[in-house]
């Protein structure tokens, strides 16, 4: 056969060294890969753009109409949405469009602050507590100690703490954020702990440990990314709950003061008048809270899929 007659040199020609041993692709850092994945996810993109739109309107919205948020005009009270008053007016003749977008600033700030507290304190406490449970005597006491703190914070009446804060601090956004940060994170901490307790039993965590990863690295790089799904779900509830908590705190006199608008206070004030048919005063703040939620959910779903190591194809 012809092949046999080929000269030995041709049969044993040295191959280019990188034909079989391809150079490994430069590894992409996790966060970079996540960003690439997010931009591919259409739902996440929709969420992101919607959120951007809401943020932009919160900044420029009140300036688009010739009314200021707190300007009263009693002759124009209780007008339905029209071409002059896009979202109608309230019982004092204030323009609901202007109030909605100036209120957006406070509500979004509170929402983001609550989310940040959840992420920083809640995820950290939950991650450490869950990881340390069952890891020797010291680990057990760390988990127990942290969980007892969580129980105490759940147990003490929140309202009492808030009134105490009011005595110590001036009412305002900062006080509200402090009030949220005292107890806002306990739910997240417990959720993350439960999730970490389950995930850390899986083989890949043991493997990472045997390969010499530090505790911190295991928590941050292996456990938390796998718990991302429930972390994001919890975050998307924290935001509207904080927006509504703000209206409750403002009602108590701890939050924003009377003429200043926020979505929560607008919805609260509108409650008395839904029965008399002025739907627009409740409708617009409520729909915007829902849209913000939707945007976060969509963005969160996209994030979850791109951050979750298990769902890679």
């Amino acid at each position: 056969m012809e092949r046999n007659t080929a000269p030995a040199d041709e049969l044993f020609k040295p191959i280019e060294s990188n034909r079989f041993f391809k150079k490994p692709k430069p590894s992409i850092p996790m966060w970079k890969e996540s960003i690439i994945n997010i931009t591919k996810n259409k739902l996440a993109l929709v969420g992101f753009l919607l959120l951007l739109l809401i943020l932009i309107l919160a900044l420029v919205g009140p300036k688009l109409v010739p009314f200021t948020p707190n300007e009263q005009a009693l002759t124009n009270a209780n007008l339905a949405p029209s071409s002059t008053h896009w979202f109608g007016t309230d019982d004092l003749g204030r323009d609901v469009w202007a109030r909605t977008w100036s209120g957006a600033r406070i509500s979004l700030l509170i929402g983001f602050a609550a989310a940040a507290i959840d992420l920083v304190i809640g995820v950290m406490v939950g991650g450490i507590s869950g990881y340390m449970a069952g890891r020797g005597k010291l680990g057990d006491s760390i988990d127990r100690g942290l969980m007892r703190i969580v129980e105490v914070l759940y147990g003490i009446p929140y309202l009492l703490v808030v009134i105490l804060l009011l005595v110590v601090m001036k009412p305002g956004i900062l006080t509200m954020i402090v009030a949220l940060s005292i107890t806002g994170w306990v739910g997240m901490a417990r959720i993350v702990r439960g999730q970490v307790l389950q995930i850390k039993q899986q083989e890949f965590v043991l493997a990472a440990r045997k390969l010499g990863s530090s505790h911190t690295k295991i928590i941050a790089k292996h456990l938390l990314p796998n718990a991302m799904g429930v972390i994001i779900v919890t975050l998307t509830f924290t935001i509207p709950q904080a927006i509504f908590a703000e209206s409750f705190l403002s009602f108590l006199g701890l939050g924003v003061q009377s003429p200043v608008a926020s979505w929560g206070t607008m919805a609260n004030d509108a409650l008395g008048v839904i029965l008399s048919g002025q739907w627009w005063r409740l409708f617009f703040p409520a729909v915007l809270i829902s849209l913000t939620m939707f945007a976060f959910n969509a963005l969160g779903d996209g994030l979850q899929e791109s951050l979750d190591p298990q769902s890679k194809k």
Partner: protein
Amino acid sequence: MYFTRRVFSMLVTLWIIVTLTFLIMHSIPGDPFSTDAKALPEDVLENMREKYNLDKPLPLQYVLYIKNLLLLDFGPSIQSNRDVNTMIATGFGASAILGLQSLVLSIILGIGLGGLAALYHHRFLDFLSMLIAIIGISVPSFILAPLLIKYAAVEWGLLPVASWGTWQHTILPTIALTVGPVAIIARFVRASMIEVLNQNYIRTAEAKGLSDFQVVLRHGLRNGLIPVITFIGPLFASLITGTFVIEKIFAIPGIGKYFVDSIFNRDYPVILGTTIFYSIILIITLFLIDLSYRFIDPRIKLSSRED
């Protein structure tokens, strides 16, 4: 041994909660008589303060309170001339019925909705159930309740407007209480089941010929249940001890309103009594949840001494 240690640590937690609440309560301005003080002459006020031990130094008040507490006596309410024990005993029934009804309903609907969404991930049913969930969470109960009263009770006359008595009275408040938790539970079930359904053991279960239903129920749901159970714990404690807003709107004779009213009235024994009652339920529930983790996933180890 493990059990006695846990009971001891629960009692310590409870004691810390009582002490902190006591301290905070007395450090905020105002006292139980400051709201209607104008009507009362000074010597009557003094008598009242003496009757409720409010004239004694704070450490002594604390010792006296703890002594009564060890005898399971929450003391008398300052505002209503009733024992706090009686107030809780008479009101707890209504709150607990509403709470349990809405809890059971939230769990069933939440798991159903979330499970459907996970099974039909990225398809129409997923989208629909998540839309319902988003609307559910962004319409809080204090907005939903008046709307329910307006339509279901006043305009269509289907159900009683408010108050308490028959089973029909519980329907509207139960709906108002259920919508939020359903949305949250559905989202948790969906998120953790999507993750679980991607795992290898699910593929194994499918490969060995189990029906879809069995795969989802026996393997998928069980392993995705931990966040749901974790969320349900505090929810259970707060639902069965009543909800301030709902009890006010529907005029329900429960104990939920005492939690807020007592603080505004500075009714010290009621503040402490309701706090302790809620905390006991909460602490026991959280303990049971920790135990249930091992039941759901036997690999979970909470304490290094267990094995």
